[in-house]
């Protein structure tokens, strides 16, 4: 089989075209939001929001039945945004440390989700889909939702880029400039929540964190300015999505896992070869 055939073959299947579109969009989107997650050290927060979606999904399954996936999206979105705001609120005035607060919310919501799903007959299948994603099951309607909400997130980042950078780099400056620093912080949490929900079907709850953190970290190793980091991160996000899905198609590997493994492969390559922070460069210097 020639290379062109190898590339074109999966495109004969509409589910693969939809899957590739979803994986590429989600890969790019996650890297943009992920840049802020990485720079602010919010990886744990992102993971927590992803896992906290589970009880929302379970409630959706219980109320609407398994057939209507559109309802599940809205349940997930509502839960994720509520949890993001809740964690923000607790960590702002709480008596426990932020990571402790996140850990408690994370574990509690995840357990609640599993408990709810376990009451549904045949729950194992649903659970696997939620945990590991089902990018080949993406419908045209799902693509529209990804486009609409992903687009809204990108627009918000674009319009409020300066402010988000200041709040991330130097919150004290944000406050002396009398910017609504707290509002921007909550906005960032909500953007993460929306991104998580939009990406859920592609990589699932369990591997969501990887899409937020890995392409952005790869770019962090290569870029010296934030706009470049975001651009490079998106590129790696898109590439990971597309290449991962091809790997999944030909090697019959679970799609979410394949996408994440490709992203991790890029990361370690960058770690080794990065001109600025790479291991090879450090070796040369010594």
């Amino acid at each position: 089989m020639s290379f062109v055939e190898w590339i074109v073959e999966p495109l004969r299947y509409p589910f693969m075209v939809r899957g590739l579109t979803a994986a590429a969009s989600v890969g790019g989107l996650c890297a943009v939001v992920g840049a802020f997650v990485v720079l602010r050290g919010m990886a744990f927060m992102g993971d927590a929001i992803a896992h906290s979606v589970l009880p929302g999904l379970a409630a959706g399954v219980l109320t609407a039945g398994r057939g209507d996936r559109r309802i599940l999206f809205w349940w997930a979105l509502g839960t994720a945004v509520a949890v993001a705001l809740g964690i923000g609120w607790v960590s702002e005035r709480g008596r426990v440390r932020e990571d402790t607060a996140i850990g408690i919310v994370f574990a509690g919501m995840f357990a609640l989700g599993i408990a709810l799903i376990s009451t549904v007959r045949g729950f194992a299948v649903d659970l696997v889909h939620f945990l590991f994603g089902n990018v080949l099951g993406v419908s045209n309607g799902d693509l529209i939702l990804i486009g609409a909400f992903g687009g809204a997130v990108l627009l918000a980042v674009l319009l409020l880029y300066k402010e988000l950078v200041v709040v991330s780099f130097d919150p004290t400056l944000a406050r002396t400039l009398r910017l609504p620093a707290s509002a921007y912080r909550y906005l960032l949490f909500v953007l993460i929540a929306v991104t998580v929900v939009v990406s859920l079907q592609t990589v699932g709850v369990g591997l969501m964190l990887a899409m937020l953190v890995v392409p952005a970290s790869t770019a962090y190793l290569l870029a010296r300015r934030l706009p470049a980091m975001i651009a490079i991160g998106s590129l790696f996000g898109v590439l990971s999505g597309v290449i991962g899905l091809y790997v999944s198609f030909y090697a019959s590997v679970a799609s979410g896992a394949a996408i994440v493994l490709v992203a991790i492969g890029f990361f370690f390559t960058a770690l080794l070869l990065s001109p600025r922070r790479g291991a090879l460069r450090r070796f040369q210097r010594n």
Partner: protein
Amino acid sequence: MTAGRFGSIPSRRGGAVHIVDAPAVAVKRLSAMLGGRPALLDITFELEEGRQLAIVGPNGAGKTTLLRILAGLLSPSGGDVRIHGHGPCGHVCIAYVPQRSGIDWRFPVTVGDVVMMGRVQRIGPARRAGVRDRHVVREALAAVDLADLAERQIEELSGGQQQRMFIARALAQEADLILLDEPLAGLDVHSRAEVLDLIASLRDRGVTAIVALHDLGVAAASFDVILLLKRRMVGYGRASDVFTEMHLREAYGSCLHMAEDASGAFVIHDTACSGGDDVVR
């Protein structure tokens, strides 16, 4: 000559209008609690526009707390703070230069990016930096002698250059009051001199400066007014009036070594062994 700060029109987007004739800083019977314990008690002083004040005192004396209250980052538990006649929270003309240790130096931004951050509020949301913003940033970088390093990633700067970058950011913010928290900490002798010169040059711009310091000698040599702090105000005024043996013993207890050098000036070392660190939050 008071070289006008970057153009004559002070475009104070949303900032409080300054009351003419009001002192730059007026603090009256200020007290503050931190974690349920008194951090500052009954502080009262006034500072005229363009003057330079050094706040000195042992660790835990409340220097950082006082700066943060003046910046409007922390609310006092009692008393009153006026900056140019208004409470600090209404002002966008107060620049706070944090301790260098609190900054993530690996953040992917250049020196120019950080200085431009001082203008974010003036530019406004959903807008890009305009011609005037870029001009102000260029001038601010030139004023601190960092124009050549504008494209450098901030991690690549020396400690002195990092401090100068933050002063440039304060200038780009068009600040009338600059608060610096231990700007000399961790700098070598050469960088300390550069940063001190730069702070002194703020006088020509009519900028008021308040600087928390550890080094009493530097405070005495380079600042108009000294505030000796140990939760309470031990002394306020010119160095010769403030740095009396009685005041110093009150502030530092036995942790202070004083010796008279050949010229008759006191050489003072703060061994900084009294109490906990300034609370940085």
